[in-house]
């Protein structure tokens, strides 16, 4: 019974992660300018990746595999935002202008 619950939970997490990865990918393709695309990538980096990793952890059970997955998770939640932040900073620094909607409301 417990196994079944864990399995179902892990499938839900994996599927959710996959959906968020897909949403992020579509955003990267479709958004109009660099700064908006950053948002899309952030979804992949944090929510998508996080959910997939949690799903895998539930599959792994209590073992070294889960510890390594936790470590990957830990690295990812720090590196993803830092990299995106550095990117935005560098782009601003190089005077890349954000796309602004200047139509009258």
């Amino acid at each position, binding site marked *: 019974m417990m196994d079944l619950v864990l399995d179902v939970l892990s499938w839900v997490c994996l599927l959710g992660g996959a959906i968020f990865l*897909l949403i*992020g*990918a579509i955003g990267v393709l479709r958004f109009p300018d660099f700064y908006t*695309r*950053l948002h899309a990538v952030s979804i992949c*980096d944090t929510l998508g*990746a996080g959910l997939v990793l949690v799903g*895998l952890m539930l599959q792994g059970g209590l073992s070294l595999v889960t510890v390594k997955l936790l470590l990957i998770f830990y690295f990812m939640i720090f590196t993803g935002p830092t990299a995106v932040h550095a*990117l935005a900073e560098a782009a601003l620094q190089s005077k890349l202008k954000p796309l602004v909607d200047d139509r009258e409301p």
Partner: protein
Amino acid sequence: MFTTVSIVILIAIAVGLVRAFRGPTLYDRVLAANMIGTLTVLMVAVLGFMTGRPEFLDIALVYVLISFVSTIAVLRVVALRTGSTGAGKK
């Protein structure tokens, strides 16, 4: 189920590649490379489970670190260039 996830990851990698080809700025390409790095990590992790030998997650760990460090390095080098010549906008 792992199959579904890995297909989704492959699609996302392909989309990231499209972004890397189209640009238009260098930062878009760096962004795409960073995203592909993340996706590769997930791909390796899922593949480990798919082939039934998930203990090779060390590779995924290395990928996380390397893709982070190389993104930062790219940005620092580009910042140095823009500081000196004003190039690198396109």
